[in-house]
C-alpha cells in the first residue's frame, strides 16, 4: 500500500474547495429547507469540469487519479452532500457507459456527460429488488419496433432531472442475473412517467424518484452486449462505493470541524466546552473515526487505480466510512447539545445527510456479505 497526493490531486482538491466554499455552501441550507433540486450547484460543478472526474481523457475526462477524485468528492460533500449525491449518481450512470457500452455509444454520449451538458441517472433498484438486484422484474422484450421496456424502478437519484437513464432490465428472465441487460434511455421517451420526488430524511436537495416504464426503445438503446448488465452494474458499484466512502468522509469532516469550532466557542462552567474531559473524549473518538474512514477510503481509491479487482477494498471503505459518518455526525449533535438539534446550525443536517450512506449503493449489511465472502473464499 502506497498512496501519496501528487500535484494534480492537490490542485483538484483546491479547485473543488474554491468553488464549494463560494457556491455550494451558499445553497446547501436552502436546498435542505425547501427541498429544491440542487440544480444550480450541480451546473456550477459541470461548467468547471467536475462531471468528468470519473472518465479518461479519450471521452472528455481529465485523467485524475481516484485519490484526487476522492479528495474532490470529499470537498463537495463537505459543503453540500446533496449536490455530491447527485454528482456521484451521474458517475454511476457514466461509469455504466464506460464499462458496459460499445465504443460508438461511449463516443456519442460520454463527452457530453463530461462537459456538463448531459446529466445521467442509474436505474437499477426496484420496489422488490434492492439488495437483491437479480430479482428485478423490469423487462425488455425485443419486438419488430425495437425494445419494449416495462416495469418500475425506484429511489432513482436525478430521475426527472436527468437527460438519460441507464436502465437495467431482464432480457432473458430464465437466465437469472445473466439475463439482465442495460439500456440507454432518453428521458423524453414517450411512456416514461416519474413520480414526484420522494420525501427523504436527508440529502433533500438531491431528488429520488419512482419511475414507471412502458415504452419502446430503438434497437441501439441496448447498452453493450445482451446479458452483460449485471456484471456491469456490479463493477460500477465497486467504483461507486469508493465515492460513497469519500462522500461519507466529507460529511463526517464537516460535522467534526463544526464540533471542534463549537468546543472552543461555547463556554460551560467558566471554560470552553473542549476543555471538559467528557467532551474531549467525544471529540477524540470523532477524530480517530474520521481518520480511519479517510485512510480506508484512500486505500480503496488507490486499489481502484491499480487495475486489479478492488471489490473487497471498496466494500471495506464504504462500510467503515459510512458507519464512521453516522457515529461522527451523531456525536456532533451531542457535542452541540440543543443547538445541534435545531436547524439554525448545519449539524442536524449533517446527521440526517449521513444516514443514507449506510444504505445506498449496498447497505452496510451487504458490504459485510461482500467482505465475508471474500475473506472466507
Amino acid at each position, binding site marked *: 500500500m502506497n498512496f501519496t497526493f501528487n*500535484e494534480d490531486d492537490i490542485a*483538484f482538491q483546491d*479547485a473543488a474547495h474554491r468553488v464549494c466554499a463560494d457556491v455550494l455552501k451558499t445553497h446547501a441550507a436552502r436546498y435542505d429547507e425547501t427541498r429544491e433540486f440542487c440544480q444550480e450547484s450541480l451546473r456550477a460543478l459541470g*461548467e*468547471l469540469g467536475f462531471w468528468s472526474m470519473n472518465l479518461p481523457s479519450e471521452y472528455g475526462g*481529465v485523467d485524475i487519479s481516484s485519490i484526487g477524485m476522492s479528495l474532490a468528492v470529499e470537498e463537495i460533500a463537505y459543503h453540500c452532500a446533496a449536490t455530491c449525491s447527485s454528482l456521484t449518481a451521474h458517475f454511476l450512470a457514466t461509469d455504466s457507459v464506460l464499462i458496459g457500452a460499445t465504443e460508438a455509444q461511449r463516443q456519442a454520449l460520454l463527452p457530453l456527460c463530461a462537459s456538463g451538458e448531459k446529466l445521467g441517472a442509474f436505474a437499477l433498484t426496484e420496489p422488490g429488488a434492492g439488495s437483491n438486484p437479480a430479482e428485478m422484474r423490469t423487462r425488455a422484450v425485443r419486438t419488430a419496433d425495437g425494445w419494449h421496456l416495462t416495469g418500475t424502478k425506484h429511489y432513482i437519484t436525478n430521475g426527472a432531472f436527468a437527460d438519460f437513464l441507464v436502465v437495467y432490465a431482464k432480457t432473458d428472465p430464465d437466465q437469472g442475473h445473466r439475463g439482465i441487460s442495460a439500456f440507454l434511455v432518453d428521458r423524453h421517451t414517450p411512456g416514461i412517467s416519474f413520480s414526484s420526488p420522494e420525501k427523504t430524511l436527508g440529502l433533500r436537495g438531491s431528488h429520488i424518484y419512482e419511475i414507471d416504464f412502458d415504452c419502446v426503445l430503438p434497437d441501439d438503446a441496448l447498452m453493450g452486449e445482451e446479458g452483460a448488465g449485471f456484471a456491469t452494474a456490479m463493477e460500477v458499484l465497486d467504483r461507486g462505493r469508493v465515492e460513497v466512502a469519500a462522500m461519507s468522509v466529507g460529511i463526517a469532516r464537516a460535522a467534526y470541524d463544526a464540533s471542534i469550532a463549537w468546543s472552543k466557542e461555547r463556554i460551560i462552567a467558566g471554560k470552553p466546552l473542549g476543555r471538559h474531559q467528557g467532551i474531549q473524549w467525544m471529540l477524540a473518538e470523532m477524530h480517530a473515526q474520521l481518520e480511519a474512514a479517510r485512510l480506508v477510503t484512500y486505500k480503496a481509491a488507490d486499489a481502484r487505480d491499480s487495475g486489479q479487482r478492488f471489490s473487497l477494498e471498496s466494500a471495506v471503505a464504504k462500510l467503515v466510512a459510512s458507519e464512521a459518518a453516522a457515529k461522527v455526525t451523531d456525536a456532533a449533535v451531542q457535542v452541540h447539545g440543543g443547538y445541534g438539534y435545531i436547524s439554525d446550525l448545519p449539524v442536524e443536517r449533517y446527521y440526517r445527510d449521513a444516514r443514507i450512506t449506510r444504505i445506498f449503493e449496498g447497505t452496510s449489511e451487504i458490504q459485510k456479505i461482500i467482505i465475508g465472502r471474500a475473506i472466507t473464499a
Partner: protein
Amino acid sequence: MKILVAVKRVIDYNVKIRVKPDHSDVDLSNVKMALNPFCEIAVEEAVRLKEAGVASEVVVASIGPQAVQEQLRTALALGADRAIHVDAPAALDALVIAKLLQAVVAAERPGLVLLGKQAIDSDNNQTGQMLAALMGVPQGTFASQLSVEGDALRVTREIDGGLETLELTLPAVITADLRLNEPRYAKLPDIMKAKKKPLDRWTPEELEVVVTAHQRLLKVEPPAERQGGIKVSSVSELVERLRNDAKVIS
C-alpha cells in the same frame, strides 16, 4: 501586446495565522499556501485582455523557491500562456523583487506589467511602485478599472475619497485592487492542460541581479487577543458600563 503578470505565493487567506513561539516569524510549517488574491485579480485581468483581443500573450512570473511553481501552475490554469520561475530565496525585500522583475521585463519586453496592489502576507505595497520607477515608466496603482485604447491605457484608481481616472502611455505598470474583477474558478481540464504549458526556470545570476538584504526582520508579534464582549439589557446599563467600566465617556 504581451502582458507580464508578477505573482506571489502567500499563506491562504482562510488560514488562521500563527506566530512562531520565539517571535522570529510567522509559522509556515504545514500551512496551506495559495496565490495572493490581488495577484489572482491581476492574472484574471490579463487573461480578460487576451480574450478581448487586446493582449497576444500572457506571461506569468514568480520569485521564490521551487514551491512557487504551484502558484505559477494555478495562474497557467486560469489562462496564462507560459510561466517564468525566478529561483531565489523566499521573503526577499520588495526592492530586490522589483530589481529581479525589472530584469525579467528587460528580457521579455512586455507592453504592460500587471501586479497585485500588495501581498496579503507582508502588506508592503511597494513592488509595483518600485518596478515602475526602476523601469522609468508610468504607473497606475490600486486599479479598479482598466482599458487599452491604442497606445494609451486608461486606468481608474481607488484613492482616498473617490476614484481617479488616468491615461498612461504604454509600456506601464498597473497594480490591481480588489474591485478590478472577480477571478474565475479554474476548470479541471485547464488544470491538466496547465501542466503542458512552458515553465522556464531562471536564476538571479542569469538575470545579473545581486540578491542582497536591505532590511532584517526583528520580531513578529500577534495582535492582542480579543476579550469576549458582554450583552447589556438596556441603554441605561450600556451608558453606565461605558462610563464606569470602559471609561470611554464621562
